[in-house]
C-alpha cells in the first residue's frame, strides 16, 4: 500500500514536469476549462438556490386566486362573485384583491401598485419597495408624483420603505389605500383585480377549484401548487437558455480538449517508447496518462466550483444580472441564500472530470502497448 502511494507520487512528479514543458498551452487549457466549469457551476448554484428560496417564500402565497376571464383576457372581477361563491366547504376566508401595474415614464420602469390588507394608509400616503426607492432616489418623507388614468396628477408622500432584505418579492411594490387605488386607476367600487380564497386543508384544493369553475364558468382558479410549479419550471427555462448559449462554447471546448488529449504527437509516442525501454510497464504509462487527465480536470473543477460559489453567494451572481434583468429597469438587489444540492455538485464533478480523463487515457492505450524496442530501431 505504501509503495502504491510512493509510486503514484513519482508518476505525478513526472506528469507535472511533463505538463509544465508546454506550460503556456496547458495553463491556457486549464483556464478555459475552469471558465466553463465556472459558468456551468454558477448557473447551477444560482438557479438551485433561487428555486429553493422561491419555494420557501411562495409557500405562503394564497391557496387559491380566482381570475375572471373575458374574451381570453384577465379582467376585473365583480365583488358580487364573492356572494355567488357562497358557502364552499373548506374555505376559511375569501375577499377581493386590488393590484395593478403602473408605468413610470420618468425612469421607464413598471411598478406594481397594490392595496395592502395588513395596514391602513391615508390619502396621499404610500409605502414603496426598496427597488423603487433606490432607482427613483427617494427616502421616507419624499414626494412621488404620478399621472393617473384620467390625467390628473397625484402626489404621494413616501411613509415607509419595505425592508430591503425582502427585495426579491417586493422591490417594485407601491402600497396605497383602496380609495386612492380606485381613484387613481378609475376602478369603480365593487370591482376587484381578482379574488383570494384561503383554504384550511390543502388536500381539498382540487375539489374546491372544481366547484368554483362549475359555479363561475367565466373564471380561472390559480392554485398555489401551480404558482410553485411555475417557479420551478421558469428557472429551468432560464437555465435552459444559458445552457443552449453555452452549448456551442462547450462543444468547441470538447473538440479542442479531445484533440489535445487524444491526439498523440510523434514526440509523445517517442517518449512513451523511451519510458518503456528504460523499464516502465504499459500499466505505468497508462497510470501516468491518467494523472495527466485527472490533474487538469480536477483542478478545473475545483477552481471553477470555488469561483462560482464566491460569484453566486458572495457577489450576488453579478455576471447574471444583465441576463436576468432583461429589459427591466428595476432589478432587485439580493444575495441568494446558499442552498446547495450535493448531488448536483457531484454530477458536475462527474461530467467535468470523468470524460476528460477517459479522453486522455484511451488513445494512449495503443501507444503504450507498442514494443519497447521501437526506440532502438
Amino acid at each position, binding site marked *: 500500500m505504501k509503495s502504491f502511494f510512493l509510486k503514484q507520487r*513519482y508518476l505525478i*512528479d513526472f506528469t507535472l*514536469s*511533463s505538463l509544465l*514543458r508546454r506550460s503556456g498551452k496547458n495553463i491556457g487549457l486549464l483556464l478555459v476549462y475552469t471558465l466553463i466549469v465556472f459558468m456551468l457551476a454558477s448557473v447551477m448554484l444560482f438557479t438551485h438556490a433561487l428555486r429553493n428560496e422561491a419555494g420557501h417564500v411562495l409557500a405562503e402565497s394564497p391557496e387559491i386566486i380566482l381570475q375572471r376571464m373575458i374574451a381570453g383576457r384577465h379582467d376585473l372581477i365583480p365583488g358580487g362573485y364573492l356572494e355567488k361563491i357562497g358557502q364552499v366547504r373548506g374555505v376559511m376566508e375569501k375577499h377581493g384583491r386590488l393590484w395593478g401595474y403602473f408605468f413610470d415614464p420618468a425612469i421607464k420602469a413598471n411598478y406594481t401598485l397594490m392595496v395592502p390588507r395588513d395596514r391602513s394608509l391615508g390619502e396621499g400616503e404610500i409605502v414603496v419597495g426598496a427597488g423603487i426607492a433606490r432607482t427613483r432616489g427617494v427616502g421616507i418623507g419624499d414626494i412621488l408624483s404620478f399621472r393617473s388614468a384620467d390625467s390628473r396628477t397625484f402626489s404621494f408622500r413616501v411613509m415607509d420603505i419595505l425592508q430591503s432584505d425582502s427585495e426579491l418579492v417586493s422591490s417594485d411594490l407601491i402600497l396605497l389605500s383602496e380609495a386612492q387605488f380606485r381613484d387613481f386607476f378609475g376602478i369603480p367600487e365593487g370591482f376587484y383585480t381578482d379574488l383570494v380564497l384561503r383554504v384550511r386543508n390543502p388536500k381539498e384544493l382540487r375539489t374546491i377549484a372544481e366547484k368554483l369553475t362549475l359555479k363561475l364558468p367565466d373564471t380561472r382558479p390559480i392554485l398555489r401548487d401551480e404558482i410553485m410549479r411555475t417557479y420551478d419550471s421558469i428557472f429551468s427555462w432560464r437555465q435552459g437558455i444559458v445552457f443552449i448559449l453555452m452549448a456551442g462554447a462547450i462543444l468547441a471546448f470538447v473538440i479542442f480538449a479531445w484533440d489535445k488529449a487524444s491526439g498523440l504527437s510523434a514526440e509523445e509516442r517517442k*517518449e512513451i517508447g523511451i519510458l518503456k525501454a*528504460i523499464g516502465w510497464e504499459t500499466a505505468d504509462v497508462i497510470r501516468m496518462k491518467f494523472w495527466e487527465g485527472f490533474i487538469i480536470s480536477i483542478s478545473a473543477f475545483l477552481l471553477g466550483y470555488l469561483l462560482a460559489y464566491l460569484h453566486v453567494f458572495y457577489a450576488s451572481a453579478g455576471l447574471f444580472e444583465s441576463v436576468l434583468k432583461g429589459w427591466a429597469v428595476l432589478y432587485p438587489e439580493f444575495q441568494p441564500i446558499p442552498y446547495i444540492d450535493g448531488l448536483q455538485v457531484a454530477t458536475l464533478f462527474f461530467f467535468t472530470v470523468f470524460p476528460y480523463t477517459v479522453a486522455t487515457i484511451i488513445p494512449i492505450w495503443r501507444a503504450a502497448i507498442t514494443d*519497447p*524496442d521501437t526506440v532502438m530501431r
Partner: protein
Amino acid sequence: MQTIKLEQVKKIFHQGRPNEFCAIHGIDLTIEPHYTTVLKGPSGSGKTTLLSMIGCLSRPTSGRITIGGDMLSGLPERFMTEIRRKTFGFIFKQFNLIKGLTVLENVMLPAYPLAPNHAALKQHALQLLDQFGLVSKATLNVEFLSGGEAQRTAICRAMINDPEILIADEPTANLDTKLSREFMALIQQLVDQGTTVILTSHDPEVYESPVIDRVVEMRDGLLESL
C-alpha cells in the same frame, strides 16, 4: 553474476506479410559475466536487433535466451519488464533523454515504477552525477546539454537501478573522437566496478579500445567468425 546464453535465436519481422524480413538467422552465443563484449558489423547486420533481444526489449521469433539459467523467451510482458529493469541499463544511439525534464529527473526516471524512497533515490542519482562530473548540471534541462554531457547523463540514467549488465547501442555514433575516447574511459570505470557491458558499434574507437574483452563480428544476421 549471470551468464547469458543464446541458442538458435531467430528474429523475423512482419512475419507472414509480403514485407517479411529475417534479421537474425539463428545465432548461438554465450556472454560471460564481467566481460565487455562488442557486437561489430555494418549497418543492417542485425547487431541492434540482437542487442534488443538480449536486453529483453523484444522477443526472438524462435530459439531460446537464458540469463543465469532462467528462460526469457516465454515470459509475459510484465516479467520481461521486471527483469529488464533489474538486470539491464540502456544507452541508446540518440541518447533518448526526455526533453523538458532536468538532468536529475532524467536520471531518476527508470526508478519511478519501483517507487523507492525519494530522498534515497535522489541521493543515489546525485552520487552518479557526481561520479560522472555532472552535479553542477543537475537542475538544468537536458536540451541545454552538450553532446558529451548528454552522453554522460544517459550513462547515469542507465546505472540508476544498479544493473548488472549495461547495454549500449552504438554509443559513439554521435560523438567525435575525443568524446568517444572519454566515453570508453567511463565504460572502463563501470567495468572496474564489476558491470558487464555489451555494446554494438562499427567505430574502431570502440572495438579497438583496450576496454573491450571480446569482439563478436556479425554480417547479414549471422555471426561471422569467433
